[in-house]
């Protein structure tokens, strides 16, 4: 039954894995606290010389253990915190190996410590691969299309008749459909566009070229053109980029290539059909 529910975080399989991860989290927490609070005792237990350097290294390792543990408790179904434990184990093993060669006072104890850590590493890696597996299977699939909509305060027949003249480029962005809004609330224009990849989206947002944002802006302009006959400008928005809200210089040219509808087209249209006042546009 569970497998039918997409996005369910804890399937029987995943549950076992995250339970193991949680157990390891507790182990790490316990060890971390010991390392932080009693570095001297622990150093003696693993047979390593206990100078200030060892004590501070021990404390740092303790803080790392606690951070990994906290990560696991916060997100038991996520693999990254478990893998962070494996990385930590590798550091521990490297340091223990180094200690065995240079500063071990009880080599036998140090070897036992290395074997124990190696065992834990194996367990951590096993848990990591298990959690990774269930995470991979149950991660929500990214939707590959996104539907952007806007409501225009006009009957659907008016929108269908007039939309091409004001929004001929909108169809290039994606599939355009219309549906009447309930209760005589006008017409809903829906634009289905292909979702960009995560990377493309991040880049687009930084450079103001994100297709979703651009399409959304275009829809808003189509609404303004249908309802008002023109695109609304403010003193700042009429120029590209950030500007103070002050009147633009006299020689300003309205941005011609912005989005689907150009200001030139607006003027052309206004000249040919001498745009009616809004009251007359209304049916």
């Amino acid at each position, binding site marked *: 039954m569970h497998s039918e529910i997409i996005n369910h975080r804890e399937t029987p399989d995943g549950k076992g894995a995250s339970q193991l991860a949680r157990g390891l989290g507790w182990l790490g927490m316990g060890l971390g606290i010991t390392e932080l609070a009693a570095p001297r005792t622990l150093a003696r237990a693993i047979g390593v010389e206990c100078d200030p350097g060892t004590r501070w290294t021990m404390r740092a390792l303790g803080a790392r253990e606690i951070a990994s543990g906290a990560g696991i408790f916060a997100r038991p179904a996520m693999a990254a915190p478990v893998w962070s434990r494996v990385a930590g184990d590798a550091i521990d093993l490297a340091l223990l190996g180094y200690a065995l060669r240079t500063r071990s006072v009880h080599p036998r104890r140090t070897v036992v410590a290395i074997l124990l850590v190696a065992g834990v590493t194996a367990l951590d890696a096993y848990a990591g691969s298990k959690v990774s597996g269930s995470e991979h299977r149950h991660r929500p699939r990214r939707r590959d299309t996104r539907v952007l909509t806007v*409501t225009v*305060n006009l009957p659907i027949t008016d929108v269908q008749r007039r939309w091409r003249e004001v929004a001929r480029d909108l169809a290039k962005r994606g599939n355009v459909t219309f549906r009447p809004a309930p209760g005589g*609330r*006008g017409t809903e224009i829906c634009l289905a566009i292909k979702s960009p990849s995560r990377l493309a989206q991040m880049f687009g947002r930084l450079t103001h070229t994100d297709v979703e*944002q651009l399409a*959304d*802006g275009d829809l*808003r302009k189509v*609404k*303004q053109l249908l*309802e*008002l*006959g*023109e*695109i*609304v*400008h*403010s*003193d*700042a*928005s*009429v120029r590209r980029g*950030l*500007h*103070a*809200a*002050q*009147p*633009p*210089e*006299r020689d*300003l040219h*309205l941005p011609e290539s912005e989005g689907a509808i150009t200001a030139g087209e607006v003027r052309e249209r*206004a000249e040919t059909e001498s*745009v009616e*006042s*809004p*009251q007359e*546009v*209304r049916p």
Partner: protein
Amino acid sequence: MRATCWMGKRDVRIEHVPDPQILNSHDAIVKVTSTAICGSDLHLYNGFVPTMEKGDILGHEFMGEVVEVGRNVRNLKPGDRVVVPFPIACGCCAMCEDGLYACCENSNPNAFIAEKVMGHSPAGIFGYSHMMGGFAGGQAEYVRVPFADVGPLKVPDHLSDEEVLFLSDIFPTGYMGAEMCNIKPGDTIAIWGCGPVGQFAIASARMLGAERIIAIDRFPYRLRMARERAGATETLNYEEVDVLDALKEMTGGRGPDACIDAVGMEAHGHGVQYVYDRTKQLAKLEPDRPLALREAILACRNGGIVSVVGVYGGYVDKFPMNAVLNRYLTLRAGQCHVQRYMKPLLDRIERGDIDPTFIITHRMKLEDAPRGYDMFVHKQDECMKVVLSA
């Protein structure tokens, strides 16, 4: 032309900027004859409103003479004397048709910014940040007024600028605050904040027939004006009394039938709560200090109405939702739909129901705007309302 520009936190200067021009066919250019500094301009002045840019022209309370109109403006001509409402509204979207002009769907060219913060975008506003459209404001010699055939109201010559100027914002805002209270005969209304909007809320509650009007502030001169000029029946100074206890005592333990928050995001107070909000606001962890709003909610009678016309900038903390829920309170709020109140309130002014000039304490030239801001923010010289003239 000269214009009042926001140059940074607590830094307002008169700058020379280009003259405005017609950008849309429903625009008009208005030569400003009178403009005022609004309490909400102080939120900009104090740097609490996001998306301001250095050089933004301030001002959303203004009136003047039409000097130029766009191709599609049929109801105005050069020479007409108009008061301009502060929300910019297109007049033909679904919101405007419903009379919710401050929620116009078309007038904010930066709607995408507002949508990220508020979910949906409200109308554009003159001189009030880029999130609200990036429109140049009216504390200038000239201003471009979009949708001039929808908002601006022609005013009769026999009324002076000062008598009609406040139709642009604070009088309708105060009136809407009182109207949202559904005042019935015998009602007691409590009003937090006796600044200009609070004074008009008090005067409006009186016009709408409230029996008792309790005004709350900390400045004696403001409380005095509330009593002597606006029509409050009682006043409370929250630095002298515990407001919740006092209101209970005055209303037989019931609480006021409706409460109006005419304070907004920069409320003052005392005690732990004030220190908490002030600290969080300074650390940018909370944009608003909603002390008045919290108190209004706790004070309101069971089943009463809390009406909010003070301006808020973002999310508020420690909101007493259990009181709203368990005591069946109605929370109403809004930027004023000025366009729908201008004509009826102009009629009231003409009939003599109210003389809005009572709140003016300082008259200055446009050049003195920086001094006006400084006086208003520090409440120097019992400053209540600064009017700037050309």
